[in-house]
């Protein structure tokens, strides 16, 4: 299935401003960084989590701990994906008991990734609460899940794909909408 670029949604500056706004919202809603931890879903969610933590540090002077979640082992479609995904490590080297967890991912779509991530976080302990921060919400939920912080809402059709590209993984910061040719 080949994809062609349909729309360019955001560039580097736009993404920085959006992250700054999300960081402010997180601090406002949680009244600071007390008990705050940030956990990103591998791979891009983890990069975004690190950036959010750095942005929060610039505003508040305190950097919340950052963890990485690999949800491969918690997926509900392991038997239906053509190739097995490579399993990576989950890296949460702090106690999440009674913490305020901000779960971060790049694109919120069906909600199944978030479902898997919630299950995995709860296996690590009992947080005070979990809030969800996504950079893009593209709709089409298949589970009753919503985000607490959204970078940008992009209404899409199921034939389209939203890609959040990051310097850390793709070498360039941008958000694009792709459409399949067939």
């Amino acid at each position, binding site marked *: 299935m080949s994809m062609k670029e349909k729309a360019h949604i955001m560039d580097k500056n736009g993404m920085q401003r959006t992250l700054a706004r999300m960081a402010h919202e997180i601090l406002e809603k949680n009244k600071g960084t007390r008990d705050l931890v940030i956990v990103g879903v591998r791979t891009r969610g983890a990069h975004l989590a690190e950036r959010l933590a750095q942005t929060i540090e610039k505003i508040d002077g305190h950097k919340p701990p950052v963890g990485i979640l*690999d949800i*491969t*082992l*918690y997926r509900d479609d*392991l*038997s*239906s994906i*053509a*190739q*097995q995904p*490579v*399993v*990576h*490590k*989950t*890296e949460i080297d702090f106690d999440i008991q009674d913490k305020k967890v901000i779960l971060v991912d790049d694109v919120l779509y069906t909600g199944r990734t978030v479902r898997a991530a919630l*299950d*995995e976080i709860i*296996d*690590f*302990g009992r947080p005070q609460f979990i809030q969800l921060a996504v950079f893009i919400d593209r709709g089409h939920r298949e589970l009753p899940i919503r985000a607490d912080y959204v970078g940008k809402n992009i209404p899409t059709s199921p034939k389209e794909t939203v890609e959040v590209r990051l310097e850390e993984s793709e070498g360039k910061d941008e958000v694009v909408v792709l459409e399949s040719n067939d």
Partner: protein
Amino acid sequence: MTKNTAWTKKDLLGLKELTREELELLLNTAESFKEVISREVKKVPTLRGKTVVNLFYEPSTRTRVSFEIAAKRLSADVINIATESSSVRKGETLIDTGKNIEALKVDIIVMRHNCSGAALMLAKNLRASVINAGDGWHEHPTQALLDMFTLKERLGRIEGLKVSIVGDIAHSRVARSNIWGLTKLGAQVTICAPALLIPPGIEKTGVRVTSDIDEALADADAVNVLRMQFERDAENAFPRQLEYFKNFGITTERLKGAKKNILVMHPGPINRGIEISSEVADGSNSVILEQVTNGIAVRMSCLFLVSGANENIKKVGRLTSLPVNRLKRP
């Protein structure tokens, strides 16, 4: 490791038929499972709804328990069949037993058998996945994988390492699997044993052969000490044990001629005072108990990968795990 390496085999029968990339995939995946088993909740839902049967035709506690824990950590259901108390006693053939287990809708059979090739035969006849937990003198792939995992974790690599395997090489499936796996990943393997316990032609696998224990230890990064099984010849066991310990036993004295931080490994159960002294087994060079822990991670990796591959094979609707030429092997 290339990113696109995928596991495509429904079975894990031995390390001889695996590629370097497949070995690396197994070991890398095991690293992630090592993280899982050190969590507060040591369980992931990955194999929920799958059933694993441990079918053991030879007595084994540690391997069976390790597989059982590995499967349970992945949320699979596990059933143990000890053949002494099953219909095998009534003369049922291996394939019939396998087909009956499969008819119970079992997904993975972990088998230990005293005949070399038993796992291959079962795998050819079943759609369920088969993991070889030791077949005769042939292979014990998960033991070798956990040995390699331990080496990699401790020393950071396998490529270029010098690993000596000491003991009854001729009757050891652990040695064979280690030789295949280690040489494929670029380690230099030396085997050391009394001349009678060196299988003829073994040097064709690319290993160095010696009967001089001090030579085998001299430049080794790790020594894998095999269990000596004198119980097979109980009558003469005691004097031969003393003689073996004197000539091949790994002792503090002997390790003085080796690298200071040489890793001492043993697949267990250890015979203190026969192939290894207590001082060494419990000493700072020993990683014997780490091997046991790593065994769970490695077996979780094997169960996860064969299970996923088999699901994909069933989807495509054919048995693809066995290349045709393998079936003709003499």
